[in-house]
């Protein structure tokens, strides 16, 4: 075993890379749950975002030629965010307007994210599992994608929005006690729509990072439970941006360790892959009693 400097550097950078999509998604989930809507559709939304980014960039390349277009990946990122927001909007309408069970409605979207990409991929590329590779990935800044920096920058921004702006105050009020907020003239429905759609936009961003930042194509099921892990991290992080930063770093570290151990003789790769999931279970069992969810989370609001 040779655990030298190179190994630790690789582990550190890998941790940052693995944390990024989790951080985007967990912060998104935080906005949604703080407004009172559980959004376990984030897993599916990551997939939709990843698919959109990869397909949009590839289609543009097919139309414009492969030559370097520095602006192109950003178009992909933007469209992934839009699609993520739209999918989340479906969840929002069904669970806010039609008072559906929020978990079932979100599960439907997750099921959709398992099937729908195959239809799109078959339409464009004639195979059901992955998209064509794109030439214009997101650029690298000091060895890391700009989205990595953006994710970590979002932590203080999210904290400021949630605790220092009127919007954040109202969002929290709507999630804690919608009746009280409503009496004071806060529009409960509008804030909940905003919270859920915001979560979708961020999960879409995470998806774009996966398909055109981390890799250069969409692969079926590439989110591999990241959306659910992010939700566990959000619970572990106590629905607070700083807590979420540390908990996603923990999960990111677990994933990075799993990746770095693959191909070594320390542990078999197939078992190591399960490591982040085991950590999630342990964390949920160990810390859930000590965290407190928003008061009205999961309950449809009726005027």
């Amino acid at each position: 075993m040779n655990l030298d400097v190179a190994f630790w550097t690789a582990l550190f950078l890998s941790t940052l890379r693995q944390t990024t999509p989790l951080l985007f998604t967990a912060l998104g989930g935080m906005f949604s749950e703080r407004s009172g809507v559980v959004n376990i559709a984030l897993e599916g939304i990551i997939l939709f975002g990843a698919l959109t980014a990869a397909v949009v960039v590839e289609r543009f390349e097919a139309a414009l030629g492969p030559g370097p277009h520095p602006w192109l990946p950003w178009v992909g990122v933007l469209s992934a965010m839009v699609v993520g927001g739209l999918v989340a909007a479906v969840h929002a309408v069904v669970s806010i307007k039609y008072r559906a069970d929020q978990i079932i409605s979100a599960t439907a979207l997750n099921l959709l994210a398992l099937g729908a990409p195959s239809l799109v991929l078959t339409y464009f590329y004639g195979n059901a599992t992955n998209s064509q590779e794109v030439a214009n990935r997101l650029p690298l800044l000091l060895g890391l994608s700009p989205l990595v920096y953006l994710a970590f920058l979002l932590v203080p921004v999210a904290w400021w929005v949630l605790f220092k702006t009127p919007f954040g105050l109202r969002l929290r009020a709507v999630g804690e006690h919608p009746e009280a907020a409503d009496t004071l003239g806060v529009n409960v429905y509008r804030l909940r729509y905003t919270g859920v759609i915001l979560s979708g936009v961020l999960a879409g961003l995470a998806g774009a990072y996966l398909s055109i930042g981390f890799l250069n194509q969409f692969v079926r099921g590439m989110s591999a439970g990241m959306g659910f892990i992010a939700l566990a991290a959000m619970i572990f992080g106590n629905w607070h941006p700083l807590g979420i930063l540390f908990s996603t770093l923990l999960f990111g570290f677990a994933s990075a360790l799993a990746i770095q151990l693959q191909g070594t003789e320390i542990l078999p790769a197939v078992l190591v892959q399960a490591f982040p999931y085991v950590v999630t279970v342990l964390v949920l069992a160990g810390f859930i009693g000590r965290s407190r969810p928003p008061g009205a989370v999961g309950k449809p609001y009726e005027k």
Partner: protein
Amino acid sequence: MLLGGALTLLLWYLAPWAVPHRLFGGEGVLLNPFGHHLPQGSLPQGYRDGWLGLVFYLSLAWLLLSLALPWRMGPKGAYLAGVLGLGLFLLTYVLFQSSVAQVNVGAERPLLRRYSLGLGSYATLAYSLYLLLLGRVYSPGGLAFLVRRRGVVVPLFSLLLASLLGGVIVAILKETPGEAASLREGFMLKLDLITYTYQLLFSPLVNPSGFLQSLLLATPLIFTGLAVALGFRGGLFNIGAPGQLIMGAIAAMLVGVYLPGPRWLVLPLAILAAAMAGGLWGALVGWLKARFGAHEVINTIMFNYIAASVFLFLISANEYKFFGYTLYLPFKYPGYEARSYEIRPEARLPHWTDLVAPGGELSFALPLALLLGLLGYLLVRRSLGHRVLAALLLGALGYGVGGLLPGLPVSFGPDLTSVRLNGAFLIALLALLFFHLYVFRTVGGYELRAMGLAPKAAAYGGVMAGRKVVLIMFLAGALAGLAATHYVLGGGIDEYRLKQALPYSVGFDGIAVALMGQNTPVGVGLAAWLFGILLTGGLQVNLQLGISRELVAVLQALVVLFIAAGGFLPRYFTDPLRAAEVELKEEVRP
């Protein structure tokens, strides 16, 4: 009424009324009274379309009647118009079939192939049914009639919505085969494409091997559907069926491959092992919830990934390095593919031909056993235990007597014997029965439903909530684990082995099955069969039209979404209190 009439008229104008012949690529000879679409320039092989004119004028007359009759006579008029419409559709069907038969009969090989009625004619059928429904709704107590049956109305309406949206998706994703001369012909081609897609999806209903194949695919869906439904009944959301299935499959493989012994001992033990392993995997999540309050949704999903890892660990290689030491495992069969050794013949579930006709003779053993078992259950009017015991004893008697009776020699074609439907289907039927008896006929089941409806009231009434959660998750996991009997012990895919190709995502399909079936055993059975049909038909859609069979997965997801939203129907279809209000109001009204 006006809306339905206008829509029907529009479809009559735009959609083909009948497709007497279809080329292999999916392009059809489309007949429409306003002008045909003929891929080869003329009607094929001397086909005569004279019947269409008659039907067209009759249809126009009927459309006028359908507006006039309800206007003059109220609901009774709607009934009358609906019945007339059904008659009209029947006439269309008969005329069309005879027109095709005129060409095909006598020919060596059928000249007209893949013929069927088109959307225009189906519009007549749909509008008639709609008229009948309107007649019922506008009769006294009509709304209460619908609301009382909301358990059927909401899933069916959601299925209808999902199918419409699915049709739009098909229209967008798939270019129409053939060239359209006008805008109307373009519409006609698109609408025919959608109709043809759905005809293919439901095609297993009309051919025997497709029918068996749909039962084969329904088998695991029944198990996983029940696994999810049991959770829902108890107020838990079990998304862990895939993982529970994997654990069941591993256990079934271990017993089936490595336990020597006689058939009467090994086979039940292997089945039991599948149930136990799935059950324990589920119970673990239940315990985490009861003890630590960890939400079952995220945990079951994590346990799915962990189970998949364990599964691959066991069968993808036999040699692993742990901190430099080497661990040897005995499970993987030599070769490139990740699969286990073969299940011993004693532990295999019989193929359907061996159940229905062992030794090439149609046996009376199973039908008689089922009949007597049912009689035993219905005739003995004592406690539940007595009734089940009587059913079992009489069933065994029937099996014995039926086995002694001489059988009728039969033979099945290779298209039927190649379908790997097996004894797991019978286990699935027993599981449906168990679900019914446990949930609706025992004290434990009563407590379970109380937990689902009002957990606090149930706890106040003396239900041990924590223990109950573990038990529910155990039973749900056991049901999901039993699905493994189909894949491993019954050789449901292609071999009697545990293979990497184990399609454990049917555990997720169980969610759609449970919701579609409204968590009742009959509903789950029917919903599983419906999705079995669609999955079988999805293969045809892929073969003939080149649309990914994931179309069925998308339809399932949409059905789940729409049922969750109550089918976008008014509130009194989803809220029991408001439903009761509607029913009361309608009853009080003179």
